[in-house]
């Protein structure tokens, strides 16, 4: 009943078909690695995490406090979701939004001439004497992670993802929609769901 079209696929398209999910997996792991490290370094010290958020002077006091307490655990949970490939698209969206927020925050701090440690990797505010914040590279790094997270959102869930094992993957792997469409009859939804769980 399940029609696989691998045999009839042109070679290049087939290679791309094989490679793209692995790119997503790699992107997931890089984004997750950054998030988990960043969260882990902050999670032991919520007070400094709050302080790091306050240092940006962008959020009102109580909101900054709430964000400071919640950010490290959020980063870790989203990171873990990306590692195992569960709720991949949602996790990717959250990761991308976080990176976007960081880029905006850092750029705004830079523009206002604030001299703060970004607090990205813990220890916010403990900018050692004479040490200058390297806003430019922080923005480049976070923008890069943002793009990778964007890839994950666009092409979820990649290989080795719980989403596939649990049948949560999107109905059709979206990177080559034409390809399956031709081959699969009106049972397409069911077919691709079966495929998702193999």
């Amino acid at each position: 009943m399940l029609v696989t079209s691998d045999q009839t696929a042109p070679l290049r398209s087939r290679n791309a078909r094989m490679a793209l999910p692995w790119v997503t997996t790699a992107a997931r792991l890089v984004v997750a690695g950054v998030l988990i490290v960043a969260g882990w370094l902050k999670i032991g010290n919520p007070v400094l995490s709050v302080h790091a958020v306050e240092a940006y002077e962008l959020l009102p006091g109580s909101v900054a406090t709430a964000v400071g307490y919640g950010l490290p655990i959020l980063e870790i949970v989203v990171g873990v979701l990306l590692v195992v490939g569960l709720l991949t698209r949602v996790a990717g969206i959250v990761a991308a939004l976080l990176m976007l927020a960081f880029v905006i925050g850092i750029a705004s701090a830079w523009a206002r001439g604030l001299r703060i440690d970004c607090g990205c990797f813990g220890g916010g505010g403990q900018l050692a004497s004479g040490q200058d914040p390297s806003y430019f590279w922080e923005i480049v790094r976070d923008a890069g992670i943002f793009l990778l997270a964007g890839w994950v959102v666009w092409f979820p869930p990649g290989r080795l993802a719980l989403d596939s094992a649990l049948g949560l993957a999107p109905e059709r792997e979206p990177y080559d929609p034409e390809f399956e469409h031709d081959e699969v009859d009106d049972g397409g939804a069911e077919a691709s769901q079966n495929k998702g769980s193999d």
Partner: protein
Amino acid sequence: MGGKATRESRARDRIRAQREADRKRHERRRIVTYALAAVVAVAAVAGGWLYAANQSQSETASGKVAPVTLQPDGSVVMAQPGVEKPVLDIYEDFQCPACKALEETSGTTVKNLAAEGQVKVVFHPITIFSAEPTKSNSVRAGAAARCVPSGQWLAYHDKLFAGQPSEAVEGFKLDELVAWGKEVGVTSPDFDKCVTSQEHAALQGDYTAKVLKQGVVRGTPTVILNGKELGDEAFSPSQLRKAVLDASK
């Protein structure tokens, strides 16, 4: 499904219905799994959030404070008479935001523990910054604190942290430093001159150099309990209290 339908069309309908049912069943299972995973993830975030908020909960001030004595070397001791150990060394810079965060979170715990006679607290106000404007801000504040008599020192110490300027601007201005002394009840006639002439600026620098030479302090705040540096637990009032009580056993 009417009687007029042919057998073939009934069979097609049945297959279609079967497929539809399968599809719905799959969809339902998908939604349930998805929701379950989402709920677990959100619960983990909420749980972590609550734990973080709980860990950072400050104690309420008991209102009692242990006597403060200014040491000749520039450090300041807060302890009940006769309490010699455990010793809690706090190396701090009045301009350092993390020191302010420590003070706001664990300051009352430190005061309470000293008042209860559980610990001898030694404050070491130093200047960790080497760039401007933070360096001069820190020196002005540190030098001014050395003009304050022991009776008002702790209140002045708290006042300095409460009034900490941003790291990007010149702050701890001399007139502010004088005014805050008055607010906490300093009456000594020499106080104004001591602050405005920055009489103890050199001492602040010397003491900083001495502390940094010892090599135990790499940044501020550094909190050392009986010679052992405390990490994040210094920022968690409940963990700090436990560490101190364990050390006094």
